[in-house]
């Protein structure tokens, strides 16, 4: 029945990989966005210092005797000191002609144009940031245009950016780690609901077909709903077939009893030996059938009651004493002694009807298969574990069949000649199981059969 279900992928893996993959993408995105922003801010910072430097140089420009004089302050370049000792270059132009500084620093500036510009360019094997600005000085003869250009390498900037990148990377990693833990947790709790349902399905007894009523997450309601519907249908069809068996057994038993009484009466009347033989065979067949019908009914009853077991306090020794007493007349007919051996009160919570039925079947077997003039012992032990042995002095179970005798409709090969249907041990075993107990078949040292029920 437990066929291997082929697995296709894993919900947990899929959920986890979506969550973890998503957070990885987010972390990387975060890294680039923050880094990009930091780079922009850092560049703006450098630009504003370069701009201030350019302004302070430009401000110092004066015209003296028709010549440009530029006594710019120490601070103009001092403000460009950085922790990484960045290199500084500058150039001062008058109307596009170099006055002083580094002449090869970028293109010669255009004479027109007022805008303050910033640019990055390669200078002497390094990338420099250049700020350029101009100012017009009104001379006596003509206006002069002074252009100042200040450049700085970007070592400190790169250092700052590296620092920020490292920090952001650490932050991103931390975020990712946290997200992974969260993803794992989320996945586990989600899948946990499924596993819990699985456990409660697995833990059910084979007879338990009642619906699942514990609350489940909304998404699982349809699944549990269909499971419950399936259970109801299953239970319904089981019940139907049980009902059918009970009904069938009943219908067979009643007419059989009638037929049996007619056959009995006829048997008394006929004298012909062959007619008597035929009638004896007929009566035996009727007995066989009616026994089978009875056992089937009992079996159905046991199955039904075991399903909804009603437990009550039962004094097992008292119950068995009663049973033994009731069966003693039958035993006496066969010259068999029926003994009860009890070591004290034995109490069990269970269904009295089922237990009586089980023990009756066991004593019935002993009476049926043990020879005359022997003894049957029903031994009750309350310690160490509550157990009942039904022991006879007959031929015992044949060892090659002992494992299958408790299976439905299975009879021993030596059972020929004894009326029976092969359900007695099955009923006893089902009753033991319903009471969370076990049934063990064995043979005594003297060879007699011993059936032990442990609870």
């Amino acid at each position, binding site marked *: 029945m437990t066929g291997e279900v082929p697995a296709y992928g894993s919900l947990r893996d899929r959920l986890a990989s979506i969550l973890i993959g998503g957070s990885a993408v987010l972390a990387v995105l975060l890294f680039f966005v923050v880094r990009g922003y930091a780079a922009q801010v850092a560049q703006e910072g450098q630009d504003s210092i370069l701009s201030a430097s350019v302004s302070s140089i430009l401000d110092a420009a004066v015209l003296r005797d028709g010549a440009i004089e530029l006594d710019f302050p120490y*601070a103009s370049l001092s403000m460009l*000191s950085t922790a990484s000792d960045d290199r*500084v270059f500058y150039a001062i132009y008058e109307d596009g002609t170099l006055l*002083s500084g580094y002449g090869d620093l970028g293109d010669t500036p255009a004479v027109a144009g007022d805008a303050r510009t910033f640019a990055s360019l390669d200078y*002497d094997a390094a990338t420099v940031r250049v700020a350029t600005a101009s100012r017009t000085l009104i001379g006596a003869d003509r206006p002069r245009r002074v252009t100042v250009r200040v450049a700085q390498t970007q070592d400190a900037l790169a250092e700052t950016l590296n620092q920020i990148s490292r920090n952001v990377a650490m932050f991103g990693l931390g975020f990712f780690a946290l997200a992974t833990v969260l993803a794992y947790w989320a996945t586990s709790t989600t899948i946990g609901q499924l596993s819990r349902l699985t456990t409660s399905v697995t833990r059910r007894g084979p007879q338990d077909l009642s619906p699942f009523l514990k609350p489940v997450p909304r998404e699982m309601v349809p699944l549990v709903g269909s499971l419950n519907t399936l259970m109801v249908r299953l239970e319904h069809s089981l019940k139907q077939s049980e009902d059918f068996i009970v009904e069938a057994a009943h219908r067979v038993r009643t007419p059989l009893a009638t037929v049996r009484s007619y056959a009995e009466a006829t048997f008394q009347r006929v004298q012909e030996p062959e007619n008597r033989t035929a009638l004896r065979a007929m009566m035996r067949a009727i007995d066989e059938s009616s026994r089978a019908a009875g056992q089937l009914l009992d079996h159905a009853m046991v199955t039904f009651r075991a399903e909804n077991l009603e437990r009550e306090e039962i004094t097992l020794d008292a119950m068995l004493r009663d049973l033994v007493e009731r069966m003693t007349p039958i035993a006496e007919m066969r010259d068999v002694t029926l003994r009860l051996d009890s070591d004290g009160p034995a109490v069990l919570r269970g269904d009295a009807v089922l237990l009586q039925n089980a023990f009756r079947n066991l004593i019935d077997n002993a009476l049926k298969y043990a020879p005359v003039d022997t003894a049957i012992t029903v031994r009750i032990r309350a310690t160490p574990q509550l157990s009942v042995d039904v022991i006879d002095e007959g031929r015992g179970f044949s060892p090659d069949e002992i494992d299958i005798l408790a299976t439905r409709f299975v009879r021993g090969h030596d059972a020929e000649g004894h009326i029976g249907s092969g359900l007695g041990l099955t009923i006893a075993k089902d009753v033991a199981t319903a009471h969370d107990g076990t049934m063990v078949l064995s043979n005594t040292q003297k060879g007699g059969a011993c059936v032990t029920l442990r609870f």
Partner: protein
Amino acid sequence: MRYIAVLSLAVIPLAAIAQDWEGRRVFGDADAPQSLRVLSSTDTSFFVPIIDSFLEGRADVSVEYLSTGTADLDEIFRENPDQYDVVISSAMDLQLKLTNDGYAQRLDGFAHPDWAQWRSSLFAFTTEPAAIVINTAAFDGLDIPATRQDLIEVLRENAPRFDGRVGTYDVRQSGLGYLFATQDARASESYWRLMEVIGSLNAQLYCCSGAMIDDLAAGRISVAYNVLGSYALARQDITEVLTVILPSDFPTTMMRSALVSNASSEPALAEAFVSHLIRLQSQGSPEDFPLPSLDAIQDTTGRAAISLEPALMTYLDTLKRQVFIREWENAIIQNQ
């Protein structure tokens, strides 16, 4: 064509050697397989023990020590940066500009304080204050000036006595003189007043500290302004005659610095030399390292040296220099 090529190959090193050096000395075996050319503004005498200890255990190395003035040095080196391995100069501004212009090689892995290096390329290894040095005898009966203001007053009040007997750097010739002058001018207006006074006394202008100290010792001048005190103190023979005054109003302290040429043919050896220099300045005894170490000034008076920063290039700007030199000339050259 080929002849010319061969000729020029032969001429270039000759030309380099044919240069007029203030001092030129080869340490170690002249034919040694490895030779280090050190271009320096420092008098050779200071470097004798330093180079000797460097050559200990380096049998296959020779050091050629070439010394000249700071301004010359800058020019010579810029022309042929591949001819020299190590450049040592007291003109911090010129050294910094060399480094800024990419002539210096980065040397990583030196444990050197941040304020004493720039771009891990330029390494300061001394601190030397500019001093007022006087011929003690010439001040007989006068108060020894402690500040620039004191000096101004003494000179003013005794003008006839000091006429033609005050010396200072000719900032047009000397890089170090220019550095001292510009830093003084930056720090205080009293510099210009002092220059006016010195100018009115027919100042004697010098190329170098050494010459000024010689004249002081010989009594040809009585006061020298902005001289390297370290040079005066190093002259054991004349300590009796001279008094070295570190002006107490504000200090102008220079750091001598070294760099390894980017075009050096012996970069490893050059690096070893700079490393040796740095180690000696912090660990060496006065015999091994005759110059004041980096800590010498910082420790005793807490005076900060001129800082190594790009702003040092400010006064090297042609326009700025023009303005400054003109003002300086106006102040100092009055009667000539």
